[in-house]
């Protein structure tokens, strides 16, 4: 029996390692290998290309703006959902998860239908006032906001629920106003959940492709994000550039994961939201 269970253990281990190596680890490693197949030439060519630097810069800006918007929305919404009672709360909480199960193409389609300058519900009116959403940077930001919308809320809500509001009530009864209570009591308790949600949103924002592709339309050039550039360069047989930009995106996303992995142990161990300070 002991012998047989050792065999089973080894067999399972082998199956799992084999599956993960074949499906994820080996292919991911090959990207690095392909990028540096002819030394640093490909990477140097990529970074010397103004299209590439523009795309990377646009991607970073879009990601930062989208994550900032989502941070404010996510933390605010989490507080409202956990700490307050209002009609339609359960429906809202269910609807917030909607973006997780919507195809990126549907996200793009939905935004185009409302914000297209020619036929969109609001698009025409906004266009007349000189604001273009779709086929412009705001559309890319909105598409990114759409796909990352639930990420911070889903991290913060369980932590807020677990913390309870005893500390907050104590703070208020001692005369702290809402702002003070938030900064001194609530925020320290949900700090790591927020950081975690932000890192996940950032990784997702840097890599969004489908929704951004639809919203950016064919206006290639100044509306091209890093992922769109990878597609174009690969299809134009500039594989070295495509691989180099891909590798940069992979490194960024793996870095995000490592940050999360380092943070995770401390996530469960925030003992009390406030420590007694002298």
């Amino acid at each position, binding site marked *: 029996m002991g012998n047989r269970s050792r065999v*089973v*253990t080894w067999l399972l281990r082998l199956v*799992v390692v084999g*599956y*993960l190596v074949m*499906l*994820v680890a*080996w*292919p*991911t490693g*090959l*990207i690095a290998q392909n990028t540096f197949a002819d030394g640093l030439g490909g990477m140097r060519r990529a970074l010397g290309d103004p299209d590439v630097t523009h795309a990377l810069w646009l991607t970073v800006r879009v990601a930062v703006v989208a994550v900032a918007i989502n941070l404010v929305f996510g933390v605010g919404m989490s507080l*409202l959902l*956990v700490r307050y*009672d*209002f009609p339609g709360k359960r429906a*809202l909480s269910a*609807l*917030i998860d*909607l973006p997780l*199960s*919507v*195809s*990126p*193409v*549907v996200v793009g*389609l*939905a935004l*185009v*239908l409302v914000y297209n300058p020619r036929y969109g*519900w609001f698009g025409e009116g906004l266009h007349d006032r000189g604001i273009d959403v779709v086929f412009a940077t705001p559309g890319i930001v909105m598409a990114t906001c*759409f796909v990352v*919308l639930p*990420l911070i809320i*889903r991290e913060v809500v369980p932590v807020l*629920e*677990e913390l*309870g509001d*005893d500390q907050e009530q104590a703070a208020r009864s001692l005369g702290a106003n809402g702002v003070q209570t938030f900064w001194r009591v609530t925020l320290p308790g949900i700090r790591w959940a927020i950081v*975690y949600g932000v890192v*996940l949103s950032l*990784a997702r924002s840097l*890599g*969004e*492709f*489908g929704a951004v592709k*639809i919203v950016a339309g064919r206006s290639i050039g100044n509306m091209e994000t890093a*992922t769109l550039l*990878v*597609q174009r360069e690969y*299809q134009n047989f500039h594989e070295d550039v*495509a691989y180099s930009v*891909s590798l940069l*995106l*992979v490194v960024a*996303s793996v870095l*995000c*994961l*490592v940050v*999360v992995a380092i943070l995770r142990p401390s996530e469960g161990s925030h003992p009390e939201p406030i420590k007694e300070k002298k």
Partner: protein
Amino acid sequence: MATTTLTAGRPARKRRSARPRALNASASLGLGVGLLWFSLLVLIPLSAVVVEASGGGWETYRSALTNSQTVNALQLTVGVAVLTTVINMVMGTVIAWVLVRDRFWGKRALDLIIDIPFAMPTIVAGLVLLALYGSQGPIGVEFENTRKAVFLAIAFVTLPFIVRTVQPVLEEMEVEVEDAAASLGANRLTILRRIVLPTLVPAIFAGAALSFARGISEYGSLVLLSGNLPNRTEVTSYRMASLLEGGNRPAAAALATIMLLVALLAIVVLDATQRRLARRG
């Protein structure tokens, strides 16, 4: 997205005092602003999709569902999503088991690898799979532009869902119960069937719903990998995108609505199955 899925399978924690209070003025203002943003960003655009599709009445849906290219795309997408979900239900549970119960060198690295498909940009995921399974890959297979490539891509992007929902449940499970069963003479298979699996079933099915929803909506990883050959390797997301590019917005919207319904149906079916299994266990 790593722990976004965790919450789905996590057993309800005991809450301390949670006494939600009524809205005050500033909270109402915050809720108003939040709802406005949420409506402008998500609710109104998604309703626009349904409205656009329903503009032509049932005719739009009928023509979408009688177009053979669309039907083939739907069949392929749902078929591959079902297949990968089933594989994930088995492999995801096994991976979670090994990550929680086994101890060996390099386990933390494996844990990190699970999250890579979440964090990696989908277009890069396609390129990554092409590097190994494409014609220039080192193992000499040519999966590009075949249905095998579609399957690979979906298996890749949906890998983490079930692992990450089952893992926390396994971690919180008490080994004592299994020990007790073993001391009463139950063999490993019986313990697995009567104790371990019934505990894991809700998490497995919650993960399966996420995996299926992601599987039928995948787009980015297929763009470079599957060739998107009409009737052969074209999935519904790609079909939607090309309908939209061709200016056929109602058809694209109709297909989008159909996909939303399929996702809903899958959630209902998986939930019902899970309830039935839970009753029996």
